[in-house]
């Protein structure tokens, strides 16, 4: 006997073995249908005796095992049922022959046999035979069970007779020696008459009778016989049979104690019996309640029970003993192994796992000689099953795995990869490994990484050899995803390489793989390749950010809540992720999401087709491919997409394709990802303006970087230089531009100097069509008089809207920052005035300093150019007409009312300065760098200079001979003629002036510093030399007339002295109480008196 029946259990000892076999050609499925029906008759109640007979059916049984039938009667085939198909009467003899042939195989031990013939009808079928039953077809055989029951009863009769025969077989006859096959040769020539031999025969026979009793349902008798056998055999040291007797004792006791059976799952073989017995199990433990299911006429039952039946502890002891005896015989390995298995099952019921494991440990080392590969697999599988039974799941998994490996051992010509894979899958729970990646997402992985990894590798390999690359990819992905922390760098490389190999044939995806046995393999998203640390939705760039019109904003607020303000936040305080972000995306515009990722692999990781997973609005994701360097630090990746409709969009996650495996990674399942919200509003589309300038863009931001600017322009200018800037706006969006509003704002320089520059541009409103160009004049100038570089900054804002977004009340801002570095050019260090010959003019003296590093030319209107070397200072004199500042526009009443006096004064000064500047027209030119600009005197003007430059409000006009007479004009007259002198006063001031007294004093200038006032005999006045002017009202004139008579020829000057009579005659008060001296700048008059031509006098 070489093949152990691993399914055996203790209660099998009480069964009789019936072999059911097909004879001739019987379709397999039909045979097993019939076999099932036959096997359902597993327990038969014998009518008369109230005893139960248990039947064990086998469709395959080795005849050599049958030889051990004397040793343990349940191994003996006592019944044979043959199933055959017989189409016609002609075949019948042949069929009958075959049946008999089959009977021969088990002939020696058979008690009875039956033949079930299917398909035969007619004469032969009519005959009544006990050993043959005829059925027309496999489907039409209603009384198969009945026939089997009858058959079992007939077996019982034989069994019972044998039992009685042997039991009553007292020592009268010579008791034959029962023996096992391998013993036969040992007994040749043994003295059969010795006492020892007889005892041995007796002992063995007792044991045999015990077996028969057990089979015949006489449990108590069996126990008695076994006990006697044990004693007899022990005395003769017949260890093999002693073991068998002890095992018999154990079996009987087990049957008594555990009527539910010890087979565990296998109890399903006779469920009805198991249930029935379990139901009345309680009864059987109560003394005196035996009769229902007990053994009739078994008087010893109640007395014997306590004495004969082993206690649960004893059962194990006896099993141990029995096994130790079996262990002495090499040829009884199968018996020993089976005994171990049986004991383990009992221990499993008793929940004594430790001892059970010892039995199993022993079973592992039982050598059964050369085992076929299939037998090895079977053996490991059963070991695994038994370990599972006693709760040793790890050990169970270990043996299952060994069995799996055995399926594909290199010695097997056709490796069973499918079976291997199936067995491997069954080991997963033992290694606490679940194939659902979700179970691994919680925190750090804790488990037997090395062992689990090995198992996964084996799964991968097995599935590949099975020819299911999809499965391999899934397992390999799982391995990579869940065991990444435990893989060495080398392993990481290997795993990814093989994954790439597999995916080149079968790309991995996100679908659930369902195995034939119903196991579902969930998709494995690669959330660690790369690892994403944070997800951040990015606002649009400043220039594209939509803004809501103020008025409309309030509207939308009011629709949300009837309250202007409520402390109750309307939206629920949900997850951070569900929070709406307080910026908007715009339909049709590219929106960005920034991911901080890193690559945990020791090599470059290529991530392809990385894009966003969104919901809410139609979103066109623009996938990116990236390549992350080995063991990269946090690496920003920007995923982009275009929302195609308006509404609320939620970013749910991202998808990647790594090593040929596509993954959908949802943020919900990634606990380690930080995010500041994934819900954002998409507003309807808006036009998009692109701004370009004639000057290059500057990177450096404006100094007060309070606001973000879309773009900025930087330029370096010399003080006074003018630069033209052209701004081009282009609508590159798909929506029409409907409104455009331009504003500008000058920001103060940081050193707090108030810049009196010109506004950059005046606001203008225009409606533009897309692609239209506009050129607002952009010019700026500044005037400062400091010797270091100044900065000027200004911001232009273009506010525009259009399309569907405008309907919703959104607009966009485009800002342009202007940054001007002003370098000093020329400036005036000093300014002063000199009176010119004419009272209407004066000389302005300017000390001009060239603060540049270049040679420059300064020019003014009506003046010579002045060449200045670097850092040179020269004086420049410019003759200017005096200014009439009164012609400057006066600020209107409104402005006056709301502006401070100081400001008004400043403004006035500024206006005056501008007037002076424009008149002077001082420009500079640096030929070497081709730069030119204006120079302003504004900063250096003081009140005194201004006063000098101002045209006096009282305007005096002197006419000699009817001709106006001013500084350099020489009035001609003739000696002896009366020269009319006319002095006209025009009052342009706002007040009434006068009265004044004017005295005309003639003198002669000898041009050598001597002035001769003693001219009484040379010049005479006709009339008074003093004029009186009465008060003159504003804008009125007053005229004084007088005449002079020159007595000699020569050059004379008239000095008109002035006296203000309006106040008292205080000395020195000539200049008037309030009127400044400059107001009385009367011209000095130069008169050349000539001799009259002589012809008149002669």
């Amino acid at each position, binding site marked *: 006997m070489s093949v152990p029946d691993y399914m055996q259990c203790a209660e099998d000892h009480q069964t009789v073995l019936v072999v059911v076999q097909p004879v001739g050609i019987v379709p397999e499925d039909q045979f097993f249908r019939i076999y099932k029906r036959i096997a359902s008759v597993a327990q038969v109640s014998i009518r008369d005796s109230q005893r139960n007979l248990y039947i064990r059916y086998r469709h395959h049984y080795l005849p050599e095992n049958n030889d051990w039938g004397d040793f343990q009667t349940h191994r003996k085939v006592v019944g044979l049922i043959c199933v055959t198909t017989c189409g016609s009467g002609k075949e019948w003899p042949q069929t009958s022959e075959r049946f008999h042939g089959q009977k021969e195989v088990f002939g020696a031990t058979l008690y009875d046999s039956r033949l079930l013939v299917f398909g035969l009808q007619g004469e032969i079928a009519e005959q009544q035979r006990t050993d043959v039953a005829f059925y027309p077809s496999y489907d039409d055989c209603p009384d198969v069970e009945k026939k089997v029951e009858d058959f079992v009863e007939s077996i019982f009769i034989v069994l019972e007779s044998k039992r009685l025969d042997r039991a009553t077989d007292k020592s009268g006859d010579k008791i034959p020696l029962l023996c096992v096959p391998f013993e036969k040769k040992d007994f040749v020539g043994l003295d059969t008459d010795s006492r020892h031999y007889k005892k041995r025969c007796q002992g063995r026979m007792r044991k045999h009778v015990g077996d028969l009793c057990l089979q015949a349902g006489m449990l108590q008798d069996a126990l008695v016989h076994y006990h006697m056998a044990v004693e007899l055999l022990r005395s003769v040291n017949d260890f093999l049979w002693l073991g068998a007797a002890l095992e018999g004792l154990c079996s009987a006791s087990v049957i008594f104690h555990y009527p539910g059976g010890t087979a565990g799952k296998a109890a399903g073989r006779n469920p009805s019996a198991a249930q029935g017995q379990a139901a009345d199990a309680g009864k059987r433990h109560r003394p005196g309640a035996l009769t229902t299911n007990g053994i009739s006429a078994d008087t010893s039952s109640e007395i014997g029970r306590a004495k004969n039946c082993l206690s649960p502890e004893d059962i194990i002891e006896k099993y141990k003993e029995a096994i130790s005896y079996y262990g002495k015989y090499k040829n009884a390995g199968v018996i020993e192994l089976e005994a171990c298995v049986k004991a383990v099952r009992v221990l499993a019921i008793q929940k004594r796992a430790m001892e059970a494991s010892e039995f199993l440990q022993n079973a592992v080392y039982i050598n059964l000689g050369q085992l076929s590969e299939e037998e090895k697999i079977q053996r490991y599988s059963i070991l695994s099953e038994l370990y599972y039974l006693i709760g040793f*799941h790890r050990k169970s998994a270990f043996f299952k795995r060994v069995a799996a490996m055995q399926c594909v051992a290199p010695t097997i010509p056709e490796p069973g990869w499918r079976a291997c894979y199936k067995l491997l899958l069954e080991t997963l729970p033992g290694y606490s490994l679940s194939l659902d990646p979700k179970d691994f997402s919680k925190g750090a992985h804790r488990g037997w990484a090395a062992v689990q990894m090995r198992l996964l590798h084996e799964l991968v390999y097995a599935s590949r050899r099975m020819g299911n690359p999809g499965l391999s990819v899934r397992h390999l992905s799982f391995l990579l995803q869940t065991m990444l922390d435990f893989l060495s760098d080398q392993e990481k490389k290997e795993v990814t390489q093989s994954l790439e190999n597999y995916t080149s044939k079968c790309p991995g995806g996100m679908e659930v793989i369902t195995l034939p046995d119903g196991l579902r393999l969930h998709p494995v998203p690669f959330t660690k390749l790369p690892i994403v640390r944070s997800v951040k939705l990015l606002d649009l760039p400043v220039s594209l950010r939509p803004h809501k019109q103020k008025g409309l904003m309030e509207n939308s607020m009011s629709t949300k809540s009837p309250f202007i303000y409520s402390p109750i936040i309307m939206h629920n305080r949900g997850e951070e992720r569900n929070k709406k972000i307080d910026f908007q995306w715009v339909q049709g515009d590219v929106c960005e999401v920034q991911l901080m990722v890193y690559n945990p692999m020791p090599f470059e990781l290529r991530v392809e087709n990385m894009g966003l997973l969104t919901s809410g609005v139609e979103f066109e994701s623009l996938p990116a491919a990236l390549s992350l360097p080995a063991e990269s630090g946090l690496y920003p990746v920007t995923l982009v997409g275009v929302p195609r409709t308006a509404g609320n969009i939620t970013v749910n996650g991202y998808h990647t394709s790594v090593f040929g495996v596509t993954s959908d990674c949802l943020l919900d399942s990634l606990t380690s990802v930080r995010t500041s919200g994934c819900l954002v509003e998409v507003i309807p589309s808006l036009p998009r303006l692109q701004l370009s300038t004639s000057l290059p863009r500057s990177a450096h931001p404006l100094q007060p970087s309070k606001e973000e600017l879309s773009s900025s322009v930087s330029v370096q200018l010399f003080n006074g230089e003018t630069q033209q800037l052209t701004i081009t706006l282009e609508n590159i969006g798909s929506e029409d531009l409907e409104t455009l509003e331009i504003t500008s704002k000058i920001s103060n320089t940081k050193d707090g100097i108030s810049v009196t520059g010109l506004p950059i541009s005046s606001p203008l409103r225009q409606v533009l069509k897309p692609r239209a160009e506009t050129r607002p004049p952009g010019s700026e100038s500044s005037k400062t008089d400091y010797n270091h570089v100044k900065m000027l900054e200004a911001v232009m804002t273009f506010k525009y809207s259009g399309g569907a977004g405008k309907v919703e009340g959104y607009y966009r801002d485009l800002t342009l920052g202007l940054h001007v570095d002003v370098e000093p050019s020329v400036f005036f260090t000093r300014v002063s005035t000199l009176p010119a010959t004419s009272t209407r003019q004066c000389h302005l003296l300017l000390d001009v300093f060239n603060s540049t590093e270049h040679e420059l030319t300064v020019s003014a209107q009506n003046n010579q150019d002045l060449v200045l070397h670097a850092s040179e200072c020269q004086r420049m004199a410019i003759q200017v007409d005096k200014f009439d500042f009164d012609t400057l526009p006066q600020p209107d009443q409104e402005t006056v009312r709301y502006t401070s006096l100081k400001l008004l004064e400043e403004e006035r000064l500024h206006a005056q300065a501008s007037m002076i500047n424009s008149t002077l027209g001082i420009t500079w030119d640096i030929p070497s760098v081709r730069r030119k600009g204006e120079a302003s005197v504004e900063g250096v003007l003081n009140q005194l200079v201004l006063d000098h430059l101002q045209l006096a409000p009282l305007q005096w006009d002197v006419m000699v001979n009817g001709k106006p007479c001013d500084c350099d004009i020489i009035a001609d007259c003739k000696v002896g003629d009366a020269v009319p002198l006319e002095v006209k006063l025009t009052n342009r001031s706002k007040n009434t002036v006068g009265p004044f007294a004017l005295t005309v004093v003639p003198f002669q200038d000898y041009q050598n510093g001597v002035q001769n006032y003693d001219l009484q005999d040379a010049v005479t006045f006709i009339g008074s030399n003093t004029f009186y002017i009465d008060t003159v009202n504003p804008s009125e004139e007053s005229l004084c007339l007088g005449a002079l008579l020159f007595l000699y020829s020569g050059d004379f000057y008239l000095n008109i002295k002035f006296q203000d009579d309006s106040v008292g005659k205080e000395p020195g008060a000539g200049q008037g109480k309030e009127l400044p001296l400059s107001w009385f700048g009367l011209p000095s008059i130069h008169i050349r008196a000539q001799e009259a031509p002589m012809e008149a006098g002669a």
Partner: protein
Amino acid sequence: MAVCIAVIAKENYPLYIRSVPTQNELKFHYTVHTSLDVVEEKISAVGKAMADQRELYLGLLYPTEDYKVYGYVTNSKMFRKLHNSFTDVMCNPFYNPGDTIQSKAFDGMVSVMMVQAS
């Protein structure tokens, strides 16, 4: 001397495992893993029988063909050293209970206890 030393967490996963013949490390993983069945069984048995007396000595867990696997033994100097070292690891405020042991001191102690692979 020991060929393999493993410290197993309460939830039956290894905190620390090291063996001397490094070429067949996996085998020891399997051995230790399967011996946990016995530990589990013994501990649960102890829990039932004598809840108070926590006998830490589990003794021989099971013998394999080549080696014998022992559970925690307090009365042997070898295991006391291991225990002390383990206690030190646990006292480390930076050690997060349940994490794999990476202490160098512990590693050194284990090395001393190991068979010196020649």
